[in-house]
């Protein structure tokens, strides 16, 4: 997983999943069509027309793969619709100083990289973007680097297993199902003594 991209900034702390995708769009039984609903209430007017000044409605953002936001991104609900909407819009990474736990897990399962940077790097990137809004950043998961021309050499941390899954395209559910013998052994040990819920 390696790409270059311009950067789309939504600089607010604590962007919650109700902003990323409002609850009323969760009535769907599929994963489709969520990209257009990303940040819906910030993005569209009451009559449904796009707000021209909202960043996600610009052509530049639509071509961008990196969303750059404030601290504690993705807090709130467990809805996986949030990373579905972000990836359907076209993002492959979100850069922030921290992520909410469930959002982070959900993102990794959908090939959306939650890229954590320090406060200093966050500030440096903001300044670099101020100087050059068209700045191109490079993300490379294998060496865990996040760089831009004239910027610091940033290496980010990522859990080794998550990295392996991203790079090798591992299907985690398939991986877990390979543990059939372990699961059966555990069940045999545990449920010989405990009642089950029904029956």
């Amino acid at each position, binding site marked *: 997983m390696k790409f270059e991209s311009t950067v789309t900034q939504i*600089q*607010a*702390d*604590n962007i*919650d999943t*109700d*902003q990323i995708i*409002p*609850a*009323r769009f*969760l*009535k*769907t*039984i*599929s*994963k489709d069509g969520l990209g257009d609903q990303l940040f819906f*209430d910030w993005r569209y007017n*009451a009559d449904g027309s796009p707000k021209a000044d909202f960043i996600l409605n610009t052509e530049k953002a639509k071509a961008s793969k990196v969303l750059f936001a*404030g*601290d*504690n991104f993705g*807090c*709130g*609900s*467990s*809805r*996986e619709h949030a990373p579905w909407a972000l990836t359907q819009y076209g993002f492959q990474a979100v850069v922030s100083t*921290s992520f*909410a*736990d*469930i959002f982070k*897990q*959900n993102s990794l*399962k*959908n090939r959306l990289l939650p890229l954590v940077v320090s406060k200093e790097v966050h500030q440096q990137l903001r300044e670099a973007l101020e100087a050059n809004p068209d700045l191109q950043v490079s993300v490379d998961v294998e060496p865990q680097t996040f760089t831009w021309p004239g910027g610091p050499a940033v290496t980010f941390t990522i*859990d*080794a*297993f998550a990295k*392996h899954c991203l790079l090798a395209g591992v299907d*985690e*559910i398939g*991986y*877990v*199902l390979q*543990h059939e013998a*372990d*699961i059966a052994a*555990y*069940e045999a040990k*545990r449920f010989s*003594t*405990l*009642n*089950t*819920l*029904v*029956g």
Partner: protein
Amino acid sequence: MPSKPRTIIEKVWDNHIVAEREGAPSLLFIDLHLVHEVTSPQAFSGLRQRGVKVRRPDLTFCTVDHSTPTTPRSLPIVDPIAATQVAQLEKNAQEFGIPYFGFQNRDQGIVHVIGPENGLTQPGMTVVCGDSHTATHGAFGALAFGIGTSEVEMVLAAQTLLQKKSKSYEVRVEGTLKPGVTAKDIILALCAKIGIGGGTGCVFEYTGSAIRALSMEERMTVCNMSIEAGARAGLVAPDEKTFEYLKGRRFAPKGEKWDEAVAKWKELVTDEGATYDHSITIDADSLEPMITFGTNPGMGMAISANVPDPANVTDSLERESLRKALVYMGLEAGQPIAGQKIDVVFVGSCTNSRMSDLRAAAGVLKGRKVSPSVRTMIVPGSQEIKRQAEAEGLDQIFKDAGAEWREAGCSMCIAMNGDQLTPGQYSVSTSNRNFEGRQGKGGRTFLASPQTAAASAIMGVVTDVRTLA
């Protein structure tokens, strides 16, 4: 050799490890998987694509709550998309052989209300649900946390979850709550103190005399909002109150099995000498009724306080967040929150929709009238609670006061079912999130206890229940 002292969090974790492989997260067994209509359809589709069955339908339980109307059950679901979603869960439950409380079932209710109510939730269990307020079940000493839809599919398929161990965080609450101060105020105070990201990566254990003094329902209120302080889970070690609550419930162990279970559950305490990664102490005596003023649950304060001024915040991003929040909320820096006009009061949600919450609201509303300018909605957490409240005559108190008495569901907590604020409206809500638009696009939410909500309904403005004549 004496084993190393462990926290209850570590004990529950250790009891559920199925496998540990070098370079991978632990494989954790899940004892109870609760499923609702909103976060599961894509997971069931995934199972079909894989040609995989649900491994343990006997450890899985479905109900509908989120997009479910709270209008009389004799009426059909008007919203066709919601109706499809509700029908889809019913179909999935039948096809995969999972027990199910459907829309018309007499025991339907909010997923985090029906689990404990039916004795599904038990001490020492691992409990998951595609819902971030799964932490509610931690009140029983269970390790309970929210998961995403891919993880729902994983648990359906394998009854296990790939998990990395969280850090432990002791939240000690010592002392005695003053009259008018509730469990909700404890958790709102915690959110205000450590912020909504304060518990990220952690599981809380709530300890201390003020927690021990809480009823099971109150403990559920506290654990419920652990996620609002960033923690994935929060729990309270079980004690006699826990066992008392569970005894005789539908799915609780019976007879000899009950005695065996209680003996096991009694081991679920944090050992003397065990250490936590983080800890904080809250003084219960000094707590006031709390209310939020902003657009996340960490933006809370004592109800007698004034709205903070962004000018006093040093961090630029934080200052900007607060400024934006006040603009959204239409509040002035420095204004008192008490006396702020409101349009709606919502008593409900998995945080505060149980009998004790309804009794608290009824206690304030009895013999009084809600302000004619306020729409007051009382939404019980389950059909069982609804019946019980009606048997006690609470519904009559609510109706006499001019409040609406509705059917069970999430309702205006998440505004997916038609119960919602209109743009600009203010509400005092007993739910758990005040994010922009959470209760309806453009709606503005003050989170508070049922007592505060009821007092505010009467006065038509944000009101400290202790000032009610």
